[in-house]
């Protein structure tokens, strides 16, 4: 404890205490324009990110460091003006322990794009097919990472004192499914009541926590294997409907109820580099408090597993192939368990120091729908990059990605980092 206090003092009063301090202020300005195939403009935005980073300490390794982000954005085609705090955390380096306190991102997992274990941070799903790294929302955490001296073993402990929900997909992306509501004879629905959002309150019973242990493998060209456990709350809600009586007998309103499931997650992942390829795998099983599927307000247990291989060709192009298996258990007495298999293939190629091209193809074999996403990135000058990405969805109406056919779009962004 004395060491923690000393480090906090160093961080807060570094300059005054005579310790060496480093401070850097930087940022990024991004403008994005999107045009969807249905004629709408899904995004026309400007975003400013200011980053402040610094450290305190006199050796090669700092005693403490901090990072803070202030983000301001304006989207003329969507959410309007928004100013918020991004990451804002301090790290104390206490011998073999990194203690990280504040609003932060904690990524767990090995595979690309789809990470069953990556559940700690809520997501910004307003554009649901954005890169997962761009979707993670920093959230308050207390995190301790314990390293052994040889860097062969790492224990990552996380505590999330308050719950934060994910940002829901925009209206254009929301599925238009129906939920059946058995009504007694003579009762009719006459309208819709406001949605009831049962966000978990800030209390001890809603504190989330997790642990992940990673073992470095001295095999082939390097590898590691991890085990993870999370006692958490799903950041996307389970939607159920209920009726609300009106003043007129026999007439009811329907109300959507958003519940956030408590769950326990057990996961494992690995990565293994060989002479010609890197293999990654990740799997997680989720156990809810409704294992039999009897409570409509709680999602059913399930699992997700991902296996990936990555190879770089002599031409310099890097390809990955990923198989994704997902299963969600059935409701009690019903045969509605779902098992889906999808694949994700990507290829990336750097055509020189300025231009890179990449493409991704996601396909769901259970309903034949999918997405193709080619993209280009160009560096105009140091810190100035332009990106163009095309999102093309296919499949029949009602399928996983086919429902988004009309959301197919081109997005162009120009970014200046300073």
């Amino acid at each position, binding site marked *: 404890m004395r060491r923690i206090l000393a480090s906090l003092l160093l961080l807060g009063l570094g300059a005054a205490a005579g310790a060496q301090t480093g401070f850097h202020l*930087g940022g990024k300005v991004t403008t994005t324009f999107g045009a969807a195939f249905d004629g709408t403009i899904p995004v026309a935005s400007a975003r400013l990110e200011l980053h402040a980073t610094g450290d305190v300490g006199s050796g090669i390794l700092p005693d403490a460091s901090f990072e803070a982000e202030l983000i301001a954005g304006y989207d003329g085609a969507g959410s309007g003006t928004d100013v918020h705090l991004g990451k804002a955390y301090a790290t104390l380096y206490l011998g073999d322990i990194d203690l990280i306190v504040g609003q932060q991102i904690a990524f767990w997992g090995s595979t690309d794009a789809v990470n069953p274990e990556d559940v700690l941070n809520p997501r910004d799903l307003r554009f649901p097919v954005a890169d997962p790294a761009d979707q993670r929302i920093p959230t308050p955490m207390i995190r301790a990472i314990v390293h052994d001296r040889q860097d062969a073993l790492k224990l990552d402990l996380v505590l999330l004192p308050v719950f934060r929900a994910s940002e829901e997909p925009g209206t254009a992306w929301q599925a238009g499914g129906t939920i059946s509501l058995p009504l007694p004879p003579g009762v009719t629905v006459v309208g819709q009541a406001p949605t009831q959002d049962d966000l978990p309150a800030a209390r001890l019973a809603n504190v989330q926590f997790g642990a992940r242990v990673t073992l470095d493998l001295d095999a082939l*060209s390097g590898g590691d294997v991890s085990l993870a456990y999370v006692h958490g709350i799903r950041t996307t809600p389970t939607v159920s409907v209920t009726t609300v009586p009106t003043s007129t007998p026999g007439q009811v309103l329907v109300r959507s109820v958003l519940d956030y499931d408590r769950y326990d997650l057990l996961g494992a992942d690995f990565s293994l580099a060989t002479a010609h390829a890197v293999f990654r795998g990740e799997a997680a099983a989720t156990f809810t408090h409704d294992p039999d599927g009897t409570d409509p307000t709680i999602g059913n247990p399930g699992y997700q597993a991902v296996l990936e291989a990555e190879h770089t060709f002599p031409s310099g192009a890097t390809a990955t192939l990923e198989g994704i298996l997902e299963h969600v258990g059935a409701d009690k007495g019903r045969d509605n368990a779902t098992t889906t298999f999808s694949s994700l293939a990507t290829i990336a190629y750097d055509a020189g120091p300025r231009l890179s091209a990449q493409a991704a193809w996601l396909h769901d074999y259970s309903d034949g729908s999918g997405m193709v996403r080619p993209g280009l990135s160009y560096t105009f000058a140091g810190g100035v990059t332009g990106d163009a990405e095309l999102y093309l969805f296919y499949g029949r109406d009602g399928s996983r990605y086919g429902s988004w056919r009309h959301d197919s779009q081109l997005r162009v962004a120009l970014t200046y980092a300073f």
Partner: protein
Amino acid sequence: MPRHTFLSLLAVLCVAAGAAHGYAQTYTTGAAVMAAVDARPAPKALISTMTMTITSRSGQSLTRTMRIWSADGGDSEVVKFTAPADIAGSGFLSLKRADGSTDAMVYLPALDRTRRIAGSQKQQAFFGSDFSYEDISDLQTGTHETYDNELLKVDPGPVYVVQATPRPGTDTSYSKLVLHVPEATLIPSRIEFYRAGALLKVMTIGKTTVVDGYTLPSEMRMASASGGSTTTLQQSDVSVAASIPAEVFTERFLTR
């Protein structure tokens, strides 16, 4: 003519040619030259700043700055980019293991994660430059113990031209290197990199600097044989250390 007889004759001819040009030639075999290169006093650990300038065929250039920590004669290396802002924080860790293989990983702050690199991926361009990850890993490594070194000729200087062919099991993607080694410095002034028998790129060491009594390359230029882009690495703020803490060469330090 048996190959070794031919090589012996070639070496004798080289010595004779050197004598005819009026310069003293100390080494008569490729192995002796490379042994001398490897035996050259070199710091155990080094910390420096590298400025990487990538120039395209059309003459446009991009400049990137990185900090390098290197120990165990280059077997352990960490590279962290400090500028420009769009790649600042990105880094690369390379650790040569006892069996000769290299454990390598890249940290990309935008993804907030480290990624391991397969052996074949080390041939990839290092952050868009003409250097590959493998070249950067081997930048400070002086050893050529696992190569068969053959003296091709001796140029005036004398400058030894040595062909280094990796023995089976050597962790490299190149089929051979041709090194031009001036006897005066024993630092290769030019290295030609061949893959599958074809010349791929050429590195020239334009300048050297003396730090704490050690002569070190301070400017390296890599040019693709196809006449495309070139990349120049300029080393500055060099400090020689007796050792660097082992925790620097860890994923923990890479991601800081």
